């Protein structure tokens, strides 16, 4: 009876907000009716534009001053020293000279947060396994102050062009850019200190930005993404240096692409554990999504949710591999 009622509610909400019903059914199972409605409402509201000041090219204060002179309103993001919410009004954020000069990168708040959680250090070897268009690669290089190596891998030839363009624009000089399938990363024989896996995903967190996502993906698409994510994460775990740190992130809110994936990895790789995240943002990862018991440490992962945090949806999980830091 309850199931039938929930199905009908899902259908109704799906119609009202323009979604495929299976999505709403999952939200109801995950959050219940009230939170689902909050989520659906939040997805109707635009996400605030944000920028990351690129300190490889200019000082934060200089960029702020120049943008303010042009009438851009900026507000600091508490946990991101180089991140700002930015109101450009009628100006086009990508067309300003300061953007072309590489002084800033237009980037979602969750995306900037991912790289801060990874916390790459100057002199390290860092791998970015799904790199284009380079928002996080350029941020990694920035935090490394161009010292050390960031190996950026991207499979898609077209997207590789935008990755290179952004790397050059931002003045990154410590990147090695490779085209290929990151699932084959073991072949490279590189043992990175840190790995960023901003995995290709179904994009279920991007509905506020891309409403077509309400109807563009079916359950098999999510399953397909989950398979690739699992393979990528598995390869990443294998190559990470003992004592190394890795961040698994997606712009999907689907537990099937997030907690499920990490839970399976923890099961297969006892050398891996979820680490706590220092920065304060978002809400905890789920340990019991759809009533399925997961590794408790997944509560240390973080979620950005449109209805809770006013951002696109994102999942961020920091993992460490047992062993001595070299």
């Amino acid at each position, binding site marked *: 009876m309850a199931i039938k009622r929930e199905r009908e509610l899902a259908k109704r909400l799906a119609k009202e907000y323009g979604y495929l019903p299976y999505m709403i059914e999952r939200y109801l199972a995950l959050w219940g009716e009230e939170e689902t409605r909050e989520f659906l409402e939040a997805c109707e509201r635009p996400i605030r534009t944000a920028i990351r000041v690129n300190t490889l090219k200019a000082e934060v204060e200089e960029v702020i001053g120049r943008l303010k002179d042009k009438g851009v309103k900026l507000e600091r993001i508490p946990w991101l020293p180089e991140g700002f919410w930015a109101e450009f009004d009628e100006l086009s954020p*990508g*067309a300003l*000279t300061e*953007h*072309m*000069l*590489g002084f800033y990168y237009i980037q979602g708040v969750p995306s900037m947060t991912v790289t801060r959680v990874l916390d790459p250090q100057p002199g390290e070897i860092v791998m970015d396994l799904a790199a284009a*268009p380079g928002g996080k690669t350029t941020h990694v290089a920035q935090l490394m102050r161009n010292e050390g*190596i960031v190996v950026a*891998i991207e499979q898609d030839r077209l997207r*590789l*062009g*935008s990755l*290179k*363009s*952004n*790397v*050059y*624009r931002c*003045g990154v*000089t*410590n*990147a*090695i*850019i*490779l*085209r*290929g*399938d990151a699932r*084959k990363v073991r*072949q*490279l*024989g590189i043992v990175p200190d840190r790995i960023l896996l901003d995995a290709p995903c179904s994009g279920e967190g991007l509905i506020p930005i891309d409403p077509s996502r309400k109807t563009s993906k079916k359950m098999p698409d999510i399953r397909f993404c989950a398979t690739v994510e699992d393979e990528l994460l598995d390869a990443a775990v294998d190559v990470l240096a003992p004592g190394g740190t890795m961040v698994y992130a997606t712009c999907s809110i689907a537990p099937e692409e997030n907690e499920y994936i990490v839970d399976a990895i923890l099961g297969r790789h006892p050398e891996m554990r979820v680490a706590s995240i220092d920065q304060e943002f978002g809400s905890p990862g789920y340990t019991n999504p759809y009533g399925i018991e997961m590794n408790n440490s997944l509560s240390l992962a973080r979620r950005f949710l449109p209805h809770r945090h006013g951002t696109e949806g994102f999942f961020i999980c920091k993992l460490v591999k047992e062993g001595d830091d070299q």
Partner: protein
Amino acid sequence: MIPELVDPVVWSDIKNQIDGDFGQGVTQKVLADLVPVMLERNENQSIYLIPNDWVRSLNMDFEGFTLSSLGTWLGDLSDGRFRLSIAILDQIARYTDRQLVVSRRGAESFTYGRSILRASVVKLTPTLKRRQRVIVKDTRGDCIGLAALSVDASRIDRLGPEKLVAKNLVDIGWYIRRFG
């Protein structure tokens, strides 16, 4: 694809070209303690500058992957001609006075890929000759691209406002136009 150290003869041509355009010793200043390497792509070669300690990783063949870029992109060689990349210009700009400063409107039009007309010229090193390559800057001092003079600098005062002074070779709008 495996990067190779740049052949000394080829490197000396590149160095002569850069120094010829921007002043003796400029290439060495930009190079500092980096090493020039070359990547073959189609008919062209791209030249990159990499730290010395990366050189041993050149022996890696990046099995299963195609190396697409490494370090600092200096420029490309095609048909025996070397062209500087947009990515290296602000470093060169630090070491040369062969510069052309353009007005705000001139800078805007230049970053849309257009060439520079007399009306936009704010400052030009007076001794420069036709065909000279110059770093283009806006009035704030930002390096916004590279151009080739189409007249001797000494003659520009005789030009009308709509006359061409320098041809756009590359500008920072490339980043946006090329890949949006």
